[in-house]
């Protein structure tokens, strides 16, 4: 067991309630949800979970507030945990940690399936994100 695993805070109910969801956390996690939506059909929940867990472990020393709970097996519980972690810090810290996490995750994925395929998958995910943001802005 990694020493940082002791800091893992168990999620009470999978997704934090709106009362403890500062505004900066959901948009950050939405990008991950889009990405997992692209990747899980392709590499399975196990594949996504293994990659995400490894990336989290590599980033965690610089962001000790990131929790690692081995009982989180699905992309949904993993990302709910991430959202709770982001919500527990201010938006600057959350943004920095998210950027580092995406960077490491991308490099891990790229090392396995190559930069070209990784870039393609990320670009598709990003395009979906932007499309959704545009739609939301249009509604507003």
């Amino acid at each position: 067991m990694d020493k940082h695993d002791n800091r893992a805070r168990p999620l009470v109910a999978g997704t934090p309630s709106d009362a403890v969801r500062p505004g900066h956390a959901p948009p950050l996690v939405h990008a991950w949800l889009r990405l997992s939506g692209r990747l899980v059909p392709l590499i399975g929940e196990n594949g996504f979970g293994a990659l995400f867990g490894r990336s989290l472990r590599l980033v965690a020393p610089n962001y000790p507030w990131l929790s690692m709970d081995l009982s989180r097996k699905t992309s949904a519980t993993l990302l709910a945990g991430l959202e709770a972690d982001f919500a527990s810090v201010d938006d600057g810290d959350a943004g920095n940690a998210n950027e580092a996490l995406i960077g490491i995750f991308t490099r891990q994925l790229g090392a396995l399936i190559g930069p070209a395929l990784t870039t393609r998958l990320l670009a598709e995910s990003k395009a979906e994100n932007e499309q959704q943001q545009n739609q939301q802005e249009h509604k507003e």
Partner: protein
Amino acid sequence: MSEKVTLGKLSTGVPGLDVLLGGGLTEFSFTLIAGAPGSGKTTLAHQIMFALAQPERRALFFTVLGEPPLKMLRYQQQFSFFDMDKLGPSIRYVNLADDLRAGDFSGVLERIMREVEDFSPGLVFVDSFRSVAQTGRNGNEGLWDLQHFIQELGSRMAMWQASTFLIGEYTPADVEANPIITVADGMIALSHNQDGDAVVRKLRVVKMRGQAHLSGSHTMRITDDGLRVYPRLLPSMPDTFRVAHRDACRISTGVAGLDELLHGGLPQGHTLLASGPTGIGKTILGTRFLQAGADAGEKGVAIYFEKHTARLRNAELIQLVNAGHVTVMESRSLSLSIEELMDELLDTIARTGATRVVIDSLSEIALYLAPEFRHDLRLTVFRTLALLAERGVSVLVTAGFEDNQPDLRFSFDNLCFLADAVLTMRFAEIEGRLCKFMTVVKARGIAHSNELRSYSITEKGIEVDPFPAPYDRVLSGYPVARTQHK
């Protein structure tokens, strides 16, 4: 006009496979790709998928519990057929591992149907299907579930007009595969046969409903371009063979005396087998043959199965290679299949535009071949020469064998019957010297001399005496000087 349904044929994109299938894969068919782990099933499926998938005929590839999808993507993209642009618009991967954990076939079927309805594919792959089958219940209930599942899957996919492939670690003798084989329209079995230390890959079309397929096992290879199947067929005869050439174009063999024995040289496109014991000058004849080609502006290819030092000491050959006239092919593998050899030879001929080929020698080629091809050297040589004849190149092949005079033979393994022309080269003892003699045994389609000529190997090459040897019983190894009155 016939009102029978016409079966559409899909070209698989796997060289040689369409010939085995009887023209291609039947559209909307349900095919089992079976074989042991590592036999190339997933690669075959991917190659077919990338060849056929397009925005109008999309492909859904379901991964199950076999090779992890990440690794599959990692390795499959190494093949040249893996076109990244097709991922997304034409090809979608779906992982079924989580759906299978429930162990319920109907749940898996529903998931597959949801994905099919969402993506409307023309091609569906399930890899590995054995993982699906093994998650079912044990005993007869499980067997019934499986059969029902396969029937449902087969009929639903056919309704969706999707050609479907199940990939599984089965052999044709596998009882567990029986329900699948029964329902499937086609079955392609892959295997890797071990003989001694060599392994040769094989592909067999076990069944293919609605069309006459080529039976039997056929050699296949996996290269950077994917699978390639070699149907056990001779190349088709070129049109030039259907025309009678009374005055075939002659080419020089590089030895003036031999050209004279052939009454003007070797007919272009013919194969000359030069046979004889060690030291008789076969390799030198090969070099001269290539040199004559270079002098006439022809390119040549030389395949050497002699040890490397023999070639390295051949200064004339090195010059020809350095000048770009000749390309040397040599194998380091000691488990060659004839198909590998022919692939490389044909590639080299196509790349260089060569019109002359030297194979030196057939007696050593067996040292490089996998046992299967070594055991039937005659067939191996037959296929090689047939392919070269189809390309229209002129060939000099050498065959060495131990001199066992007065045994009058012209080659081993009856190889001499496969060549258009045969030159025999022999030693004979004369006045305390080991002298060399040659004669043309046969030359198809042309008149030739039947004289036995003495020859020497000098700095100029092979110098043949202008007159018949003045000896009798030369081929016995113990010639007798011919007296004047004879």
